[in-house]
């Protein structure tokens, strides 16, 4: 009995796979729409590029949102990686390295959910996961893929911190709110998160 329950908690059903894929694809559409609809934003950041890191969280939300909705091991990595692959397929000036980024970013959130043994999906876990996916993204951009070789060391550290904060707010907080909003509409009825809107909004909720 317990084994059955454990298997239900960790194994992916077809509906989990398809919903996770569609979340990644929808994220691709949202990236596309945001970048097409808000050119002013990007222009504003040309003046001071490190500030653009504040928006990095937008590219990180599939990791946290996917995990909060699917609630299965690997969901954060799968959604973020697939979103990155779609970005690469649509054409990205980062080339194939965007797939490496996706993997690293997904791992940041996945690690946090794994530490909580895929049992806790509350606001504080979402915020921590968002923060870590941001930190992982910042580290990979500043040190692994080294997009900013020309930055000074202080700027690099600032970059990592700003991406972390961006991840916390956009990937963490917004994903948690979105999951509750989606659960209210009944759209998650076939998924483990179907009752997310009834879960407490307190930071230490179970």
């Amino acid at each position, binding site marked *: 009995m317990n084994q059955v329950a454990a298997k239900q908690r960790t194994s992916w059903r077809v*509906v989990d796979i398809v919903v996770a894929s*569609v*979340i990644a694809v929808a994220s691709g559409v949202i990236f596309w729409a945001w970048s097409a609809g808000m050119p002013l934003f990007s222009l504003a950041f040309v003046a001071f590029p490190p500030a653009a890191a504040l928006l990095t969280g937008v590219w990180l939300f599939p990791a946290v949102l996917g995990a909060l909705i699917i609630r299965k091991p690997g969901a954060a990595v799968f959604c973020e990686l697939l979103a990155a*692959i779609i970005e690469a397929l649509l054409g*990205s000036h980062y080339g194939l*390295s965007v797939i490496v980024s996706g993997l690293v970013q997904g791992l940041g959130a996945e690690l946090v959910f794994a530490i909580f043994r895929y049992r806790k999906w509350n606001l504080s876990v979402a915020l921590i996961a968002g923060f870590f996916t941001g930190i992982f993204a910042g580290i990979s951009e500043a*040190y692994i893929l080294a997009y900013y070789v020309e*930055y000074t060391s202080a700027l690099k550290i600032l970059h990592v911190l700003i991406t972390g904060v961006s991840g916390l707010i956009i990937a963490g907080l917004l994903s948690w709110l979105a999951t509750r909003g*989606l659960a209210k509409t*009944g759209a998650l009825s076939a998924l483990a998160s179907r009752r997310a809107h009834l879960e407490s909004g307190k930071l230490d909720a179970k």
Partner: protein
Amino acid sequence: MSSLANRGADAQTRRGAEISARGFSWQHAERTTPAVSGLDLNIQAGQKVLLVGPSGAGKSTLLHALAGLLEVDESQQMRGELLIDGADAFARQRPVGLMQQDPETQVVQSRVADDVAFGAENLAVDPEVIRERIPEVLDAVGLGMLSFDHRTQELSGGQKQRLALAGILAMQPGLMLLDEPTANVDPEGIGPLRDAVLNAAQLSGATVLVVEHRLEVWAQHMDRIIVLEPGGGVAHDLSPQQLMEDQQLRAELASAGLWVPGYLPQIQQVTLQPGGTLLEAKDLVCARAEQAPRTRPVTLQVRAGTATVIRGENGAGKSTLALTVGGLLAPVAGQLDASEQLANGLGSSPFSWKAGALIGRIGSVFQEPEHQFVAQTVREELAFAPLRAKAIGGRELKYEPEQVEQLVQSLLVRLGLEHLADANPFTLSGGEKRRLSVGTVLAASPDVLILDEPTFGQDANTWRELAQLLVAQLEQDTAIIAVTHDEHLASVLQAEQIHLAALPSGDVAKPKGPVLDAPVGDSWLAKINPLAKLGAVATATLPLISTLDAVSALVIVVASVVLFPLAGLSPLKFLKRAWPLLLAGLFAAWGIALVGQDSGAVYAQLGLFSITEGSLQGGIATGLRAFALAIPCILLLATTNPSDLGGALSQQLKVPHRFVLGALAGMRLLGLMIEEFTTLTLARRARGVGNFGTLAERIGAKLGQSLALLVQAIRRAGRLATTMEAKGFGTAKRTWIRTATFTRTDAAVLIAGIVLGAAAVGAALWAGTYNLVWS
């Protein structure tokens, strides 16, 4: 019946499956009452059965149970037994085909042949055998003219359903289940679909169960009609003959909301008093966007208290015309003028009005109610527009807050939604959603009400409630414009009909926005194994990450450009594809030139930052490296179909096929979601949410729209998953009709990539510009 039904009569006839239910009951998890209870039923092999009943009679549940798709867990939710050919239905011993109502999620793959083969592949049928079946089954459903590589996204709704049917036939099922197959299909697509189903039944000998509330399409072609009771078993079991003759039975079925052939819901007729002219169109030409196809010119006059119905073939641009008249799209040519009476102090072009002013004058109700929901409860949804509607001059609010409360209360009563005032709009039933979406627009008391296919998918009861609401609106001097095929609605509204002629043929809509599975052409590179190409691009470009210098990047850029002809890319085609990437590369270069480490001569001083010799060199190297990373990818993308890449990943690199094919199925929906996002923008403007206001309000509006997109996407994913499971997806072993091979040429391409990567780094080392970025 068309000639379809006679085709392929020589095909081998197989025996259909026999169904029997003995006291079968099923209760969904977290529900208090069973969906099906104590069902006793026998259906002989090869029978064609129409399954009807009011909503909530458990028809879909029964079909899902027969398809073996209901999840059985530890709770005691099932009783009795449900057998197919004497074996438990949940054991899924023989393939069972299932078709649902949403055409978009009945198709799984992006190419026609792949989609037909999908189910048979999952059943691990020999690829040779599947390849033989594909043309046969496409012929059987009347799609024999399509090429195997035809993009499934380009098919109409009815064609998508027939394609799904072909895929079911290729699985050679003993039982075919169809859950409202024609509900989301345009009228002209219904006949061919029905004929295809009948032909498929004859060819395969399969037992057929059709659930449908429009009886006239199916009744006379069926052997039996079974009427289910809400939450119970069989209420009636009759022949098509009895359905036409038994008056008492007909009345009973009609009152349960079924569309009984020859029976039309009656509405109390009223005498209408046409009022003054509100809108006038002269030679109005409409289009979704600059580049999109245009409608033929339309001239019409809209008077208060009258109805106008827009008719025309599929693709004539009826919805586009409705959106333009509704002030949501700008007219492309001709005139659209609001009268003084309607404009009430504003300019005469509705498109120029702000959303808040528009909703109090012209209200648009979209085809899909959910596209227009913006609030958390039914009450808030109804209060949303009146709280924002602007009065004369477009500045002051049209209503005081107390007035709004009264207005909402009276609307709740009129719509029959009083008991649902605090429910989430998305959780309502189909008929309730439709009434609410009309109500939300009526709440701002517009003088003109525009509706797109308002009666689509409604049962006879919800149809009557909606028609009554509209007639009452006409009596109150509202003008109604409806895009509809529904002749009964047109007659009830005493509407003047205008016919929009079809566009010149060949002028078909092109997809907007990015496309993942564009045709890859037949260049030399298109024939290379996708993994070989991917490996070559990775080994050529990823070493560049280790260094930031212009030399190595330049080697890759030059080499890629030289290779363009192998990918069939002309410079113009390349620029069309790559300009956003090139622009992004320039931005990156500029950023580094600004904040990079300064050294040498100072070229410019901009506030805190300076552009120096050192930072400029850094910027140039950064920009070139971005080009070098991106351009080889263009070679890969222009010559590779994602489905082939997925197939190779799964067959040759052993990536689990469940995840690869699941991802590909999701990716097929990309174009659809982009279209949906665009529709959402218009639908939300029609509700008074728009691209205006403070930055925070605009961000809030965008977030709400993103959430609305996710709701639709996740629902669709659920239906797609059901389709895939019904087609046997998720089993351990499957076959592939497109076998990935790795030839010597493929190996040569991979080696060329490795050599190129090494050459780039070598050149940088030789030139002395190599600088390890991690040091």
